[in-house]
C-alpha cells in the first residue's frame, strides 16, 4: 500500500453508534430490572457480542446510547473499556423513546463527523465490514446522495434466526445495489395491506428490472453518512429506522436521497430482538455458527470454558456429580454444582448455580446464582439471577422468571407465565411492598405474575396482539392459533353476557330500542345515541334488527317491503353505524343473530339474510375481510340451528370472496361474478 493512503486511513477514525436500548417490552419483566443489552447470552452480556463484532470490523470509537438502566450500562461499559482497545463513550439520555430520538440526540450533540456504523446493542455477528465500508465510501465519492448502506444477510424465509414477527421485504436493484422499497412483514396478516406487497409504479421508470427479496435477515447493521442523523432532525416524526426512516426516504420525491444495500452470505448475523430470538441465537452460539464468538473463546475476562464432545462447554470449577447426565448442547458456568441424577440438555446454566438431584432441565436458560432444588423440571424457559425453585417445581415452556423470584415447593407454573418479584407500581426503589401471589408461586413463594400493560405506555396499540405473541419464547404457531380462537370465544361470551345484563336492568335501553325502530333517521339517531350515552356498538345492536323488522320475507316486489327495497332505503343508515373493520365484523355478527331471532322460519330468515349480506357487501358497508372474519370466527359457527343454517346460506358467497381474494388480477373478477350468478 502506498504510504500516502496509509496516512489518510489512519486519520479517519472509524466510528460506531450502538443503540443499547431496544425501545420495546418484549423481555419484560426481566428488563424492568436490568438493561436489555446486559442480558447474558450464553453467560456473556449481550452487548459484549456487539462490541466484539465492531472491534473485528476495525472500529476505533464507539458511542453507546442508553436510556433505561443507564447506570448499569455505564458501569459495564467502563469496565469493558479497560480490556478493549476501542474508545467507548456512553451517552445517557432519559428522554429517548425511539431510535429516532437517539438519532436526533446524536445530531444535536454533533459527535459524529464521518460515516459511521449504526448497530443495535443486541447484534450477534461474525461478519467483516471492510468490504461494505469500502463500497459505501466509493459510492459516496461518486454520488453524494447515497446516504446509507444496509447490510442484509441472505437466508431462507423460514430460517430460525429470521424472527417470525419481524420479517422484512426489500425491493432491490441488483445492478446499482440500490434499495427501492421496504415493507415490514407481519406474522399474522390481518389486513389487506399486510397480505400484499405494494410499491409505487414509478420505481419501474428508473429501475425496469428489480428483485423482490423475502429471504433477507435484516439485522440493522447500517453504514450511515452524517446526513442520516440530520435527516432525523429534519423529519422529527421519524421513529423507527426502517419503517419510518427508510420508508420515508425511499418514498420521498423531495429528498432525492438513495439507500443502498450490501448482501452477505456465509456469515452469521442475527439480532436478539425477542425471547424467541434469544433462544435461537443461543442455540446458534452453542452450535458454533457464530465462530469465533463461541463460549470457549472466552469473550469475558475471567471465563475459562472448555469445549467438550457433544457441544458441551464447561468451566473448570463446575462440580458434576457422578450420576448426573449432561447431554448435548449445554453450557455450564463457573462454580455451579449439579447434583445426582440431574439431566441437562440443550441448556445454558450460569455461574454459582445449584442444581438439585433428579432435576430435569431441557431447552432452558438459567442465569447466575439460581438455585433449583430436587425434583424440579424446567422446560424451554428463562430463569433470571437469584431465582429459587423449591423442591418439585415444574416450569412449563415459555416462562420468564425474573430476578429473585422464589417458586414454592411442588408448584406447577403454567406455560408462558411471566413472574416478577418487583412490587406493583415498582419503578426502582419505591417502597411499595411486594404482594406475593400464592396461586402463582406457591404458598412459600415470593413473586407475582406480570401483566403486559403495567409500566408501559404502549404507543402502537393497533398492533395485533397475535403478532406480539409470535415473538415469545417457545411459541408454537398452532397453539397460538388455538389460543387466539379461545380468547375470541370467551371474549364474545363475556360480551353477550354483559349486554344481556344491561338489557335486564336498564329500561332506557329498551326505550332506545323502541325509538330506533320508530324513527330510523340518521340525524335523530345520532342525537339519540348521545342522549342515552350509548356507543355505536349498542346502536348497531338495535338499528340492524330495527331495519330487518321492516322486511316482510313474503312480500311481493313493489310493495316496498321486500328485502331489497327496505335495504336500499335503510342500508346507508346502517353504514353510518359502522366505521372500521372491527365494527364491520361486529355488524356481520349482529346481522346474523338478528336474522335468526327475528324470523322463526328458517327459510324466511335465509331469504332475508342472504340478500342483506350481499347488499352490505356490494355497498362496501361490510368489506370482504370482515365477512370472511365473521364467517370463520367460532362465534358464528356456534349458536342455534337457525343461526347455523344462516351461516350455510353465506357459504357460496364466502367461496366467491375467497376465490376473488386468491385471484391476482381484476381481469378475472368479471368472470367470477358470472360464475357466482350461475351458482
Amino acid at each position, binding site marked *: 500500500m502506498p504510504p500516502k493512503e496509509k496516512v489518510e486511513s489512519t486519520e479517519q477514525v472509524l466510528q460506531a453508534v450502538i443503540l443499547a436500548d431496544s425501545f420495546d417490552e418484549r423481555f419484560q419483566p426481566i428488563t424492568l430490572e436490568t438493561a436489555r443489552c446486559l442480558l447474558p447470552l450464553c453467560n456473556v452480556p449481550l452487548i459484549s457480542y456487539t462490541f466484539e463484532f465492531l472491534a473485528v470490523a476495525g472500529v476505533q470509537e464507539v458511542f453507546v446510547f442508553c436510556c433505561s438502566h443507564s447506570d448499569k450500562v455505564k458501569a459495564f461499559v467502563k469496565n469493558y473499556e479497560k480490556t478493549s482497545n476501542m474508545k467507548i463513550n456512553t451517552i445517557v439520555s432519559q428522554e429517548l423513546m425511539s431510535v429516532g430520538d437517539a438519532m436526533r440526540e446524536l445530531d444535536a450533540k454533533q459527535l459524529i463527523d464521518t460515516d459511521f456504523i449504526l448497530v443495535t446493542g443486541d447484534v450477534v455477528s461474525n461478519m467483516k465490514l471492510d468490504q461494505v465500508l469500502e463500497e459505501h465510501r466509493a459510492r459516496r465519492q461518486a454520488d453524494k446522495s447515497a446516504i446509507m448502506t444496509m447490510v442484509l444477510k441472505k437466508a*431462507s*424465509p423460514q430460517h430460525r434466526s429470521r424472527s417470525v414477527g419481524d420479517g422484512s*421485504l426489500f425491493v432491490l436493484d441488483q445492478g446499482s445495489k440500490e434499495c427501492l422499497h421496504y415493507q415490514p*412483514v407481519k406474522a399474522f*396478516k390481518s389486513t389487506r395491506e*399486510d*397480505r*400484499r*406487497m*405494494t*410499491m*409505487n*409504479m414509478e*420505481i*419501474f421508470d428508473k429501475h*425496469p*428490472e*428489480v*428483485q*423482490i*427479496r*423475502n*429471504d433477507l435477515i435484516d439485522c440493522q447493521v447500517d453504514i450511515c453518512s452524517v446526513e442520516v442523523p440530520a435527516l432525523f432532525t429534519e423529519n422529527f416524526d421519524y421513529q423507527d429506522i426502517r419503517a419510518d426512516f427508510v420508508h420515508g426516504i425511499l418514498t420521498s420525491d423531495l429528498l432525492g436521497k438513495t439507500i443502498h444495500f450490501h448482501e452477505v452470505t456465509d456469515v452469521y448475523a442475527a439480532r436478539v430482538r425477542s425471547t424467541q430470538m434469544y433462544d435461537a441465537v443461543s442455540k446458534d452460539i452453542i452450535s458454533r455458527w457464530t465462530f469465533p464468538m463461541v463460549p470457549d473463546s472466552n469473550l469475558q475476562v475471567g471465563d475459562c470454558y472448555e469445549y467438550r464432545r457433544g457441544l458441551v462447554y464447561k468451566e473448570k470449577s463446575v462440580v458434576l456429580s457422578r450420576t448426573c447426565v449432561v447431554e448435548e448442547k449445554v453450557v455450564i458456568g463457573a462454580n455451579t454444582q449439579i447434583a445426582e441424577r440431574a439431566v441437562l440438555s440443550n441448556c445454558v446454566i450460569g455461574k454459582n448455580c445449584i442444581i438439585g438431584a433428579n432435576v430435569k432441565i431441557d431447552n432452558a436458560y438459567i442465569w447466575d446464582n439460581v438455585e433449583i432444588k430436587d425434583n424440579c423440571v424446567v422446560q424451554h424457559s428463562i430463569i433470571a439471577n437469584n431465582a429459587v425453585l423449591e423442591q418439585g417445581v415444574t416450569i412449563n415452556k415459555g416462562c420468564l422468571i425474573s430476578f429473585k423470584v422464589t417458586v414454592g415447593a411442588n408448584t406447577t407454573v403454567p406455560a408462558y407465565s411471566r413472574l416478577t418479584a418487583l412490587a406493583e407500581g415498582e419503578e426502582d426503589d419505591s417502597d411499595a411492598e411486594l404482594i406475593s401471589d400464592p396461586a402463582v408461586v406457591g404458598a412459600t413463594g415470593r413473586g407475582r405474575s406480570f401483566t403486559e400493560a403495567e409500566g408501559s405506555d404502549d404507543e402502537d396499540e393497533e398492533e395485533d396482539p397475535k403478532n406480539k405473541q409470535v415473538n415469545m419464547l417457545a411459541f408454537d404457531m398452532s397453539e397460538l392459533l388455538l389460543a387466539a380462537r379461545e380468547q375470541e370465544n370467551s371474549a364474545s361470551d363475556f360480551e353477550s353476557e354483559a349486554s344481556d345484563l344491561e338489557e335486564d336492568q336498564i329500561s332506557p335501553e329498551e326505550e332506545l330500542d323502541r325509538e330506533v325502530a320508530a324513527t330510523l333517521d340518521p340525524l335523530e339517531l345520532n342525537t339519540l345515541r348521545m342522549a342515552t350515552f350509548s356507543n355505536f356498538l349498542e346502536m348497531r345492536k338495535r338499528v340492524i334488527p330495527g331495519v330487518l323488522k321492516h322486511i316482510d320475507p313474503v312480500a311481493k316486489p313493489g310493495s316496498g317491503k321486500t328485502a331489497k327495497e327496505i335495504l336500499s332505503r335503510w342500508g346507508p343508515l346502517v353504514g353510518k353505524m359502522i366505521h372500521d373493520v372491527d365494527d364491520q365484523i361486529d355488524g356481520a355478527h349482529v346481522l346474523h343473530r338478528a336474522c335468526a331471532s327475528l324470523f322463526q322460519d328458517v327459510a324466511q330468515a335465509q331469504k332475508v339474510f342472504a340478500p342483506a349480506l350481499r347488499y352490505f357487501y356490494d355497498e362496501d358497508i361490510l368489506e370482504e375481510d370482515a365477512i370472511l372474519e365473521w364467517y370463520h370466527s367460532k362465534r358464528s359457527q356456534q349458536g342455534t340451528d337457525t343461526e347455523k343454517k344462516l351461516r350455510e346460506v353465506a357459504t357460496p358467497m364466502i367461496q366467491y370472496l*375467497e*376465490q376473488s381474494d*386468491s*385471484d*391476482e*388480477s*381484476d*381481469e*378475472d373478477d368479471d368472470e367470477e361474478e358470472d*360464475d357466482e350468478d350461475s351458482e
Partner: protein
Amino acid sequence: MPYRKRVPEFQAVIMAGYGNGLIPLSDEKNNMPKALLPIVNQPMISYPLAWLESSGVTDVIVVSLASGSKKLGHYLDRVYEGQLHISMEIVDDNCGTAQALARIKDKIKTDFIVISCDLLTSLPPHQFLDMHRSEDPTVTALFFEPNKSEGGPSGSSKETEVTQFVGIDATNSQLVYLNNSDEMDTEEFSLRMSLLSKHPVMNISRLLQDGHLYIFKRWVIDLIAEVSNKRTRASIKEHVLPLLVKSQYQRLLADREGVTQAAQTLASNPSTQAYALSLSTTQAAETTDDQDGNSQWKNPVKCKAFVVAKDVYCGRANSIANYFELNRYYTKITDQVRNPGAQGQVGADSLVGDDTKLGDRTSVKKSTLGSHVTIGKNVKIVNSIVMDHVVLEDNVKLDGCIVCSGAKICEKSGLKDCEVGGGFRVEKETQARNERLVDFQEQ
C-alpha cells in the same frame, strides 16, 4: 413389452401470422406475407425453420392464415431446401393463436414447440430444449431483452407499447408472475405476500419481452382448445400463458378453468423420469408446504422461463422498427457475398443481391438490396432495405427507407424514413419524410 412406434420427442408448430405490425410490408396482394419478408434476402420463416432443424426436430406444422397461404405454400413446397417434414395448415383469417392451435389439436401427438415465424435468434436450440428436458415443466417460455434500436424507420403507426411485467423466481427460474401494463393499476405495483413467501427471491422486469417460443406439455393442447372455446381470438400470449402462470398458485382458478382437469390426464400417465425418481432412495419426496392450508393440493402446473443472455442475439420482427433492426443486424454478420457484381460503392455492412445492377457513382451504405434491382446513376442508399425487382432511377436518395418489391422510384426523388408499398410508383422529384407511400385503395 409391445413394440412401440418411434415417437418424436417434440413436434413443432410455426405460427405464420398476418403481421399487423408490419403493414404495409406484409400485404399479400402487393408484396408478400410476413413469413416471406426478406431478412438479408432470405424469407423470414427460413430462420425459425433452420433453428428447428438444428434442434433436432423433424416434424413441423406451419399454421398460416388463409390470406397469406398461397405464396407461403409455394415457398415451402418448391423453394425450401431443408430436411424438415413440413405440413401446412390453413386457418381462417380472424383467428387467435390459441384458436389456431386448437384447430390442429388432433395433429399434436407429443409435447410440442410453438414458435413464431418472426423469431430470429442466435441462441443454440439445445440450451432452451435442455432446460425443458431437465426441469420437466408444463411450459417453458422464452423471454428476451430487446436490443436497443439504432434509429431508422419506426413505422408510421406508433402503437402505444404495452410493456409486460415478468416475475421470475431467481433460484429456479420459475415463471411466477405475468401481467401487461395496460391491465394494471398505474399507481401501484402489488403482489401477494403468500406468493413472496413461496418465491422469496423474485426478479421483476419490465424490459423482458415474450419471445413467442414455447414448449408445452401435450395435455396443454386440451386446455388451449378449452380456452379458445370460451373466448374469441384467444391468444397464447395473452390468455393461455397467463392462465397457466396463475394456475400455479391459484387453486380455485385452476379448477374453474379446467386446468386441473386437463392436467389429470398427465397423472394417469406419469413420465418415466418421475417414476424413476419415486423409486429412488436418494431423491427426497416432493413436499409442497403451503401455509394456506391446502397442502394436499398438488400443483398441476409448473411454468419455467428461459431468459436469453444479454450477449446472445434475439429479436422478433413484429414491427417495422424491429424488422429493420433485425435486418441490419443480420446484414452485418452474414457471410454471403456482399457485392457479387463488384459495382458501385458498396459499404462493408451492406449486401447486394444477385443480378442487381448499380449505375455509376452509386453508393450503398448500411443497406440491403434484393435481387434483380435496377439502380440508376448517382443514387445514394443509406440505412435502407430494397426488396427484389425494384427500380430506382437516377439521382434518387434513400435514407432509412423500406422499398417493397416491384416498386419504382423515379428520378431525383429524395425519401427519408419512408415505407414504399409493393408495386408503388413514386413520381419524379418527390420529396417525402416519414411517410407511408402505398396504393390508395388499401389504406
